[in-house]
């Protein structure tokens, strides 16, 4: 593991810094192209994402339901997207529709149940199991939404890199600060360990989620996320969090929708 970052609203992020230069994105320079058939990528601020059915790798042997780690990670990525762009349920449902995933994520209740299957959630009521097809659907939706949000994700990440470079607190960078505040606030209100984790630990988690979202915003994002989920070591999750039948007592925007 690289050195864990230590941060607070008043402390610089990086401990060890080697002189580097930050690279502001200034558009795509035109490289001289010989008899070349240059293939231009979509501009970085593109928000139009063509819906397409991405083929993910076959399911691993024996895995018919998502592990607690997979469920937690998917919910945290959605939390990251939500922290960047605000309420996200409608966007998730629209993406699911565009990707022909309404069978898995058809309405707000289904989405609520999938997200609340995260063992880290305070409200661990509803259905606890997420089958592998539902996890796949969430992967495709997250990559789709990350692609839509790529410009925002990249700008926020570039601010973070500049802050690390200059040994400034990321909380003082407008985009990063807003993102961190949102993420930490959501985490504290929704997750079972939200009250006990300190700000630095939550900020580090938030920034790691931001970095992951950058890589999942690629046209290859869904495959990357799926592969990463299947290779991810199991997280430390609350004991008994996968037991069935707990009572939901969620709050705020995360409450069980009535529709």
């Amino acid at each position: 593991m690289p050195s864990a970052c230590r941060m607070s609203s008043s402390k610089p992020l990086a401990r060890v810094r080697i002189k580097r230069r930050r690279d502001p994105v200034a558009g795509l320079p035109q490289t001289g192209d010989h008899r070349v058939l240059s293939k231009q990528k979509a501009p970085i601020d593109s928000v139009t994402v063509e819906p397409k059915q991405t083929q993910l790798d076959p399911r691993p042997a024996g895995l018919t339901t998502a592990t607690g780690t997979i469920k937690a990670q998917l919910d945290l990525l959605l939390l990251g997207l939500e922290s960047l762009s605000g309420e996200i349920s409608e966007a998730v449902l629209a993406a699911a529709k565009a990707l022909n995933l309404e069978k898995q994520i058809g309405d707000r209740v289904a989405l609520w149940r999938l997200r609340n299957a995260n063992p880290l959630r305070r409200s661990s009521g509803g259905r606890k199991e997420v089958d592998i097809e539902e996890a796949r659907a969430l992967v495709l939706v997250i990559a789709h939404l990350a692609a839509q949000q790529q410009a925002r994700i990249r700008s926020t990440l570039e601010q973070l890199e500049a802050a690390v470079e200059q040994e400034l607190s990321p909380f003082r960078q407008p985009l990063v600060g807003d993102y961190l505040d949102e993420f930490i606030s959501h985490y504290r209100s929704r997750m079972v360990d939200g009250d006990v984790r300190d700000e630095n630990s939550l900020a580090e988690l938030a920034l790691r989620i931001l970095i992951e979202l950058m890589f999942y915003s690629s046209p290859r994002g869904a495959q990357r996320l799926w592969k990463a989920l299947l290779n991810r070591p199991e997280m430390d999750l609350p004991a008994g969090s996968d037991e069935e039948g707990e009572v939901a007592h969620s709050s705020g925007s995360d409450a069980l929708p009535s529709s």
Partner: protein
Amino acid sequence: MPSLTLISHTYQQPTSTLTVRGEAPGLPEAAEGSSTPPLRAIQQNFECQLEIRQGETTKTLQGDSVWLSDLIAVIDRYVGSQLSGAPKGTFSGTVAIRPLDFIFHRLTVRQGENQIAQVDLSMTQLYDLLENLSQVADDIPQLASLGTPVTRAWYRQPAGIAALLVGGIALVAGVGIWASRTPEKRAPTAFNSAQEQLTAPEASGDPLLRLQNTLAQQWQSPPDLQESLIYRVTVDAAGSLLAAEPENELARERRAETPLADLPELPPDPLPTGAKQFRISLGPESRVEVTQIEPL
């Protein structure tokens, strides 16, 4: 005599430009006017040039098909480890990368016969690089089978590069961070086969020389380093590093900046059969010294 057609293509991301070129025997007419480059037709003399923009400067790296294959494999594996929550330095043949902290990464690549280049990449630069590499891997599936050109590659030639590349692409000289090394310090045979040994660590060969070559390829001393960092390293029978224990205080303090950052300090006890221990010194000006520690 069949005609050869030069095929070239440029991949662009905001901080990364990758140009690939190679030769194909007589192209079909379909290639003319096609929007898709016939990169799959490339059969020989493959070369590539990678530009990484860092602020107002650009670092330029060059290589052949082996080099690009290594780069693709290493970056893909490295990002995979990042996304799986267990970031870990990795290397293959002519390319190595390791984390410096949670945002920055140090890419070390072989350049030509006796040079090493290093580039520190931010996350967005790493993303851009991966995007270009993923695309080229899709476009040139035959890359691994192209082999190294028999003739001296253009990027190793002292002149003539500008004539081969039309416009816009920086020349090799003076770009990037070069860590020139003195060839006399190495055993020529070991140096020539370093790539093979690195990609196939189980291959036979002097483990001391193999370790020396591996470290020489990866160690770039920080500019402010005044004295050497001494470690006791343990290598298993296959040549893989198992542990690196700092033997001076500075070595402990600056471990994260060395190629040994991800290794445990203590080796397995008892040592695996065939394991060997070495004392290594990573010094200023990227010096590397390795001596074997005789078992008691």
